[in-house]
């Protein structure tokens, strides 16, 4: 019964709305100068909307990006679908466009300070109606990953001052922001990555050098999402809507323990490099979610090429002693010589630091 309801909802969402323009998959070497030419994410009037057939999704453990809210969405050519994979990202058909739009809620003093935005530790909140009001939100960038026959390409688009379109900036951009919460203010340089930096993270197998999406994996996607207007899982919805094939019927949501939360967080923020075949395999520190919590996960592990990132601390993770743990030190700093991850973070994620701190503090053992 619920499946049928989900299917009905999906068909309403996917099939009935008329696209205002076609989604266009441009040739890999000729990305258009304007985001609107893809027809995936559209700004009209004071609204940001996803085109019909563009499906937003949410992850269990999103990458921290300077408290930016993110609207993630995927479009697949009509009639095609993704294949489920239990361990790595789903296999998407040629022509897939994955988009991620980074934006902030404007702070109450926005009118006086055009850099002041809200610092809040939450995922994006796209209402089921599917649009964002741009007088309430500041749109910064939309990153596209497009699947071609020979692999994925990454294109960074930066939103203009008028907030009605975004321009391709393969060299990236820097945007000064003032992050404001009830208790804290952080001045940051929000950095839009250049196209190479996109691939430096989206290449989890560094030797293979193949660009890949990082988020749409089973453990990340296996959750409900309010956009679907019920509490069925996203994967069930995708399956029912014909967007995904091969998902087991009995998918249960991951058992969310405190340790699972930490491991999911470290995977999302670190494991694109820190995995056994990643760019940071040079350090032999592996923070992928499948990895056991042992020396290679950092427990009593001495650093290799840490430089100033050591913070005068001896081990990556020192059980019971977060303030002697290098991993935490690198999360606590924004200086590019110290900060981890190396790309995509200019602010300090206070809530993430607190969670990892508590986990290390409660970890038994001695080095």
């Amino acid at each position, binding site marked *: 019964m619920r499946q049928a309801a989900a299917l009905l909802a999906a068909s309403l969402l996917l099939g009935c709305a008329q696209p205002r323009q076609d989604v266009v998959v441009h040739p890999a070497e000729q990305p258009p100068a304007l985001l609107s030419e893809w027809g995936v994410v559209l700004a009209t009037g004071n609204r940001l909307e996803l085109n019909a057939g563009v499906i937003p999704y949410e992850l269990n453990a999103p990458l921290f990006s300077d408290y930016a809210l993110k609207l993630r969405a995927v479009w697949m050519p009509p009639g095609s679908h993704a294949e489920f994979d239990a361990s790595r990202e789903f296999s998407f058909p040629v022509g897939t466009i994955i988009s991620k739009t980074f934006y902030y809620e404007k702070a109450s003093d926005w009118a006086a300070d055009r850099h002041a935005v809200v610092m809040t530790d939450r995922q994006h909140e796209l209402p089921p109606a599917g649009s964002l009001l741009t007088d309430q939100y500041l749109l910064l960038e939309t990153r596209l990953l497009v699947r071609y026959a020979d692999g994925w390409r990454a294109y960074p688009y930066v939103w203009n001052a008028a907030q009605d379109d975004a321009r391709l900036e393969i060299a990236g951009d820097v945007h000064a922001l003032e992050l404001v919460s009830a208790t804290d203010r952080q001045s940051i340089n929000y950095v839009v990555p250049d196209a*190479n930096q996109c691939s430096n993270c989206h290449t989890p197998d*560094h030797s293979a050098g193949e660009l890949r999406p990082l988020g749409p994996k089973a453990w990340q996607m296996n959750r409900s999402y309010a956009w679907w207007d019920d509490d069925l899982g996203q994967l069930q919805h995708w399956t029912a809507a014909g967007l995904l094939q091969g998902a087991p019927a009995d998918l249960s949501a991951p058992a969310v323990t405190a340790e699972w939360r930490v491991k999911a967080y470290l995977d999302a923020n670190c494991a694109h490099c820190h995995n056994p075949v990643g760019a940071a395999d040079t350090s032999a520190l592996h923070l992928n979610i499948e990895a056991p919590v042992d020396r290679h996960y950092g427990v009593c592990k*001495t650093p290799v090429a840490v430089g100033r990132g050591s913070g005068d601390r001896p081990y990556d993770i020192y059980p019971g002693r977060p303030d002697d743990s290098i991993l935490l030190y690198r999360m606590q700093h924004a200086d590019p010589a110290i900060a981890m991850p190396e790309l995509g973070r200019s602010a300090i994620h206070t809530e993430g630091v607190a969670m990892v701190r508590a986990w290390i503090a409660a970890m038994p053992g001695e080095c």
Partner: protein
Amino acid sequence: MKLFCRCIATASSVAEYRTGPIAVSNVRDYSFTINSPELSRVRNLSNSLILVLALVLSSACSKPSATDSANPAGEYQKLLQTQLIQAKPGDVIMIPEGGHPINRGLSLNVSGVTLRGAGMDKSILSFKGQLQGAEGLLVNASDFTIEDLAIEDTAGDGLKINEGRNIIIRRVRTEWTNGPDENNGAYGIYPVQIENLLLEESVAIGASDAGLYVGQSRNVVVRNNRAERNVAGIEIENTISADVYGNTATGNTGGILVFNMPDLPQPGHSTRVYKNIVSGNNTDNFGAEGTPVASVPAGSGIVINSNDLVEIFDNDIADNDTANIIVSSYYATGYQGTRELAAAYDPYPETIYIYNNRFSGGGSSPDGLDLKALKVAMFGLSGRIPDVLWDGYVNPDKLDANGKLKPEFGICVNNGAAEVLNADLPNGSDNIVVGDPQHRCEHEKLPAVVLTPPLG
């Protein structure tokens, strides 16, 4: 006692400092030994001093980060980024003469590209006030040549090349222009996981870790470079087959290091260090605690740690105040806690051959109170530590019937009057020995590294 002087004040190392006097006894008949109650007293005093020092160091550790005043990076940065992003195999990207402010990390992901400036004092990429990026230029590519340019004042590493084949780095200067400073970036030139590497005629100044650092690589030539005022001048780590020759390492904390670190995919061996000038490497250690080089004593000429099959010959090694050559195991570094090392890791330096070097001076003012005390007690105020300082650790599984290390694994010194001092750390320095005849030996010489395909 530790050879490596700056130890982290962890619970275990503090406890160790409190263990009190170290007996110096067990006189052996075959060589010069020492049995001095005076030394013992000096050690007592020095142990408590070290504890205080270690605590001071550890409490003074968190410095504010360098301020990120945005530099006036502009159109040229965007042009260069775009050239790097859009590069095709076979492209030569020219860096024009002049100083070019850059405030974000650059990267190259395409193989077969050459990056060429007008000279390492003419084409300068200046990263002062860098906002983003853990290095100045990051290269994830093969068949790459970089030459005739400088990378200055990066927040983190200068030039990092991560995983590739057939790499040439030639006449590249990386420098922190303010001189030695703990807030400088870690590595100057940092190729890692490279197969077939030529690093030549380059200059590295002021790195807070290693100026020239070759990690986890294979088939490597490092020649005719200059490394000055870094913590480590040149470091070869977990690398198989490296020839290091014609270089000058001076004014660093340690001149040339050949290290093996644990838990990495590849243990290193087979390094030849020859025809280098390694002199006056006496700069105070300004590396961050916790980094492997932070415990290297100031005044170290050539340091072999936990690495095997290392040949040191025909070098001019002078005036390195702790010792001209140090040979040590992982156990002497103070890095290890109480947990077992991984079974696959070999912490012992083995099959080391030192011959035909020209030594002068050195060892007269060692860094670290233990070594100072040892020097004064054994060699007097005006004396010096012998040219080769060894911690004395040997693999217990590789002993002969007499309990001595099998000769094929030993340290051979065939170098005129140069002597080995065995600090006997495994036995609490009970039996410090100079001139043990076991070191009068030879090993088979290592073959020269042949770059295949040839580079250069």
